[in-house]
């Protein structure tokens, strides 16, 4: 069952009318972990923010549709957003210290969420909170309710954030680089936790990261972003077995210890070469078609899509 469907989402910066997201199209099934892979500035986080209607005011969605469980989120009445955001779709960010409120203790912050979305108070609320904190692997949850965010370690804080995001049993969790700020050994604990939540609660996860290793062993399907466009999308196994787009190939080759056939990348200045393909300036397989028309989206194998002239 398709839970989230984004089609032709185009986002522009209304200050300089620069296109930030170009016809982003993907869908997310129930219980699926969809990985979004891309370098900084490729538009992965803005996709997440568009889904939650949290975009900064200078960015404008000019076309497209975001359907979540039969509802068109772009046409949603502002009154109805609280029923979706934080309840049906929740999000965790990279830095838990700046997303938790420093002057409220953990119990108060989690209690607020429960009261706002579910209307629970007192012992009922406490019960739910303690159960959820246990589920995310926090020891002595009753004691922790009285701690403040600064008293917890980075890994603990991220667990509290995850607890907060699953309190209302959402159907979709957006995780925006949730492990980037954590230590290596803690990172894997958090990934294991998210995996368990996905298995036990059938929670769908949109997982945004630039870490190949994490995605390889965590995501079911991967979207490869480059400069606001999805260049390739495929089931994880297929993508790693046979990356098709030259960018994906360059990206994989740049992993330490891999052979580097593309190291002598030529950087052609944008102004010298007008092209419809954003990667053309760095592409190891230059083609003539890029100056004539947009690269088409091609299904190379069932479920494996690539946006490149090479496979036309």
């Amino acid at each position, binding site marked *: 069952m398709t839970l989230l469907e984004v089609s032709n989402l185009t986002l522009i910066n209304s200050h300089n009318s620069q296109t930030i997201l170009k016809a982003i199209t993907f869908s997310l099934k129930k219980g699926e972990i969809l990985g979004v892979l891309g370098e900084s500035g490729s538009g992965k986080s803005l996709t997440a923010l568009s889904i939650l209607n949290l975009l900064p005011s200078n960015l404008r969605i000019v076309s497209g549709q975001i359907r979540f469980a039969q509802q068109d989120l772009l046409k949603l009445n502002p009154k109805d957003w609280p029923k979706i955001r934080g309840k049906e779709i929740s999000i965790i960010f990279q830095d838990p210290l700046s997303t938790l409120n420093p002057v409220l203790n953990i119990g108060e912050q989690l209690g607020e969420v429960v009261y706002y979305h579910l209307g629970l108070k007192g012992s009922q609320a406490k019960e739910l909170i303690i159960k959820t904190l246990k589920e995310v692997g926090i020891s002595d949850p009753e004691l922790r309710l009285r701690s403040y965010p600064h008293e917890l*370690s980075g*890994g603990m804080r991220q667990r509290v954030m995850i607890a907060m995001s699953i309190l209302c049993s959402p159907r979709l969790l957006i995780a925006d680089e949730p492990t980037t700020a954590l230590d*290596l050994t*803690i990172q*894997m604990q958090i990934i294991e936790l998210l995996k368990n939540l996905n298995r036990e609660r059938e929670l769908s996860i949109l997982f945004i990261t630039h870490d190949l*290793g994490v995605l390889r062993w965590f995501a079911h399907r991967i979207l490869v972003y480059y400069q606001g466009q999805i260049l390739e999308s495929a089931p994880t196994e297929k993508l790693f077995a046979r990356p098709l787009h030259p960018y994906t190939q360059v990206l994989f080759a740049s*992993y*330490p210890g891999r052979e580097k056939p593309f*190291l002598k*990348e030529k950087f052609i200045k944008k102004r010298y070469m007008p092209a419809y393909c954003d990667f053309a300036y760095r592409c190891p397989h230059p083609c003539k078609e890029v100056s004539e028309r947009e690269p088409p989206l091609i299904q190379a194998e069932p479920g494996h899509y690539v946006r490149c002239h090479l496979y036309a």
Partner: protein
Amino acid sequence: MPNDFIAELKGVSKLYKIRAFLYKKLSFWALLDINLSIRKGEVIAILGESGCGKSTLGKILLDIEKPTVGEVYWFSHPLSKIDKATYKRLRPKIQAVFQDSFASLNPRFKIKKILLEPYLLNFPSEEKEALEVVKNELQSVGLSEDYLDRYPHELSGGERQRVALARALITKPSLIVLDEPTSALDMTIQSQILALLKDLREQYHLSYLFITHNLSTALEMADFITVMYLGRIVEIFPKALFQKIEHHPYTKLLINSNPNPFAERPPEVTTLRGEPISPLQRPKGCDFYPRCPEASTICQKERPTLRSFDPYVQIACFKRG
């Protein structure tokens, strides 16, 4: 006695004092009993998580921080007894490149000035000649002359890191301390910088002290890998033996936490207890025993010291050997 060591740390420990609430003073050992030597042309990686003292080690080696106990040697000269003239001669031989290139380049200087200043300071010469050297150096890090008149904010992260590298190279160093030089960069740019570092090493016979938290980067760059935990070295091994030896439990943990996307099988799920402990509450026995999956009673009481296994492998663990 002359030897081919560029820099050595002998029994180095570093105590940091921090002010806690009001007038309460706290202190902790950021580094404990570090022995390390770097030969000419050698690349040594320091691997560890945040707070393990790897950057402090780099700073002590660079003489930015003084050790509380122990001695730092540059080309066999102990730094506590070195005379001014020798110090001035050796200082440019050991250079550094840090993670955040934006913070380490003066925003008000053009690239020309950033590179000219250290050169003229160490090699007094005509500005015209110096400019030639600067141009050459820029070329060797893969930038063209056009960059001379730009300011740091006009460059991308990768280009700035190249400038930082050119500035380190311009004093003709023997050793460069690289403190997480690629951690702030995108993956494709990271691999370009790593490739450049390798080329430069060949070209100038450089030694690197490569500080990183990323195992795969360490394996790509280094000849020897030094693993640190809570201010102590827990393992030293040559890259060639990476697959062949039984590692320290902490190193094993690091290996499993850094899943290789191109491996055949998924990484082992590690049964890891707890979180890194703060050096303020150092346990009595082995520093790692509260989290160690292999810990036994001896680990709780005594502290293991580094023992040699192979001429090149040293591990601090009771459970090995």
